[in-house]
């Protein structure tokens, strides 16, 4: 009889929001797609090969680590795919595939699983991989030549060859993205499409990227008002600002902390760009700020309800 039936027991609340980790990751992948299409448009089919091989390597290393750690497969939370895509987007268009493999290995194994996997990694795994190959293979990482003609990124021109400023493409081209640079970071328009999608799906705080980009803009304007738009639209400002400083795991939790994080990242990016030895500073600034995340969290805890002194 029905009456003898034992009903399901579970703790309250009995209704849950529909978002889960995998839906968040899936939406982030969707948001990254336009920039990938742009990469193929601007840099040819080899860009697609880089992206796909990067994703495949990341999945393989993830499975390998799962096997070694004797844990359940974690591929299905899709985070390794995002790592793969983000990592590929920060590579120059002619990078050899074996370097991609090395970078993916560092990203997944050293960047993520050495700390305990998703949720425990202090650094953004994609950026760990990128930073490693940036230092290990500077020759390959600095090669932005297209069709045999050597060319430099606008940021390199501004930093090292100021006499060639006229070689920098027009601002419209910089916004559209068809100029030498890392494959996924050149197109501002396509990255903004991803931003809009993430904001509409409520996965990221819309103000964090804006704050970051504004900070970089204001700082650059103070130093070099003439080329401020080039500083803004070139390099990884939009890719980093939209997809990396909004990464949940490696950035502060508190609303105030997120703001501090974004502003500090912007300041550091500009500091590295103007006074460091590298023309680009997004990667290292975010990695450095990742390090400060626990500290920021500790000092920006919200004032609890009812703890105000009367």
């Amino acid at each position, binding site marked *: 009889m029905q009456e003898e039936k034992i009903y399901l*027991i579970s703790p309250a609340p*009995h209704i849950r929001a529909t978002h*889960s980790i995998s839906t968040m990751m899936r939406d982030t992948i969707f948001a990254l797609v336009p920039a990938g299409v742009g990469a193929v448009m601007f840099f040819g089919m080899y860009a697609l090969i880089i992206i796909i091989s990067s994703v495949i390597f990341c999945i393989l290393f993830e499975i390998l680590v799962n096997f070694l750690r004797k844990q359940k497969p974690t591929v299905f939370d899709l985070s390794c795919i995002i790592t793969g895509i983000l990592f590929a987007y920060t590579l120059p268009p002619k990078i050899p595939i074996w370097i991609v493999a090395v970078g993916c290995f560092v990203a997944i194994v050293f960047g993520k699983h050495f700390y305990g*996997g998703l949720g425990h990694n202090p650094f953004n795994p994609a950026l760990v991989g990128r930073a490693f190959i940036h230092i290990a293979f500077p020759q390959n990482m600095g090669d932005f030549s297209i069709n045999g003609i050597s060319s430099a990124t606008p940021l390199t021109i501004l930093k090292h060859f100021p006499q060639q400023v006229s070689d920098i493409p027009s601002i419209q081209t910089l916004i559209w993205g068809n100029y030498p640079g890392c494959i996924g970071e050149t197109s501002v328009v396509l990255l903004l499409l991803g931003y809009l999608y993430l904001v509409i799906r409520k996965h990221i705080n819309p103000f964090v990227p804006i704050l970051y980009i504004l900070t970089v803009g204001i700082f650059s304007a103070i130093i070099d008002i003439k080329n401020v738009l080039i500083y803004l639209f070139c390099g990884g400002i939009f890719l980093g600002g939209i997809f990396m400083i909004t990464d949940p795991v490696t950035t502060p939790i508190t*609303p105030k902390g997120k703001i501090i994080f974004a502003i500090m990242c912007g300041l550091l990016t500009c500091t590295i760009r103007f006074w460091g030895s590298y023309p680009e500073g997004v990667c290292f600034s975010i990695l450095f700020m990742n390090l400060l995340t626990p500290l920021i969290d500790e000092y920006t805890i919200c004032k609890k*309800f009812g703890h105000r002194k009367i």
Partner: protein
Amino acid sequence: MSFYGGIHPKDNKKSKYYRIENIAAPQFLYLYLQQHTGKISVPLVNVGDYVLRGQKIAEADGLISSTLHSPVSGKVKEIKEIMHPTLCKKSPAIIIENDGKNTSVEFIPKYKDYHRFPKDEIITYIKESGIVGLGGAMFPTHVKLNPPKDKIIDYVIANGCECEPYLTVDDRVMQEYYDEVIEGLKIVMYIVDAMKGIVVIEDNKKEAIYKIKQKIEKVPNVELKVVKTKYPQGAEKQLIKSVLNKEVPSGGLPMDVGVLVHNVSTLFAIYNCVIKGIPLMERVITLSGDISRIGNFIVPIGTSIKDIVRFLNIDIKGINKVIMGGPMMGVAQESLDVSVIKGTSGILFLKTNYDSNYFQCVRCGKCVSVCPMRLMPNFLSIYIEHKKWEKVKKYSLYDCIECGCCSYICIAKRPIVAQIKYAKEFLRSQN
């Protein structure tokens, strides 16, 4: 005006268009001795005794306790321990066999002109009538009405927010018994000497707002405040913050900021008790969920879910979860053999599944942005998991109001509020 955080679950208040109906008393009533916060009541009857409708069958034990009345006439069949719906363990109950005659004690509306009686006397009478907070917390009302002498109550808030999805009890009570609710509010204002009464309703209850607004036009010192629909708007502390922009200090009570909050159903019960002399024996509940027969019903306290299902012919095929209370804070029941208690605001029959798997916290910060107490649920959850009790206390475990917003929003599906309840229970057992 609002409070920090909160969530917007789908409200599912389908039953708000259904008038309140009566449910006949079943053959057996199961009256738990613990129908309130505080000490368990002491039974006044023995097995085999004949009791009348409205007769007191259990006495309050001490100050923070409450009395109990029989909603039917009949014989006391047994006093034994049966499963309690909210304590989730066996608890003593008086089982009364209904003789169907409904022979009643005479209800004397002695305090009809309550203005002419001393306040203490009315408070004692409310205690004798077994009135507790009907919003769900079941805190004895007479304790709330009797604040320490140094606390001055300025405002009495009638809480008609009902922010839990599905439930429509308060909504219906305000629509159909607005006179009684306002009168109950005036009684409370008289007892605590409050200068102002405020009826607070969420903006999704248009009909109730309309009715109450018309009613209080000519009533001095009572006003209506409409607040945003948001969970947990009806939580005492959040409500006070929304309406008066005052924060109840941590560990304190609303009376610390000069406010007294009563649910509108409680005010209705106070009206029945003071003006009509009827003790608390029945209450309005919502039946809702994935069933066809939904609505709002007056149910005698002690009616088991099984009897309600049988009386209304509810088709429970495919239902795999039965919840007493709302979906956010209610308690899932193992069987239909539990009964309605004073704090039961609804019974939900749901077709749902629950996946107990959860993942590592990915630090997305959603729980922090929805926590109405501005706590850090993610850290609480992680530290509880690792049994770091010092850290748990540092992150203000005891400030948690267990509203469940964090668990609701968590993308890693962590049962944060369940962990917090466990931690509170664990730390209590340690001391």
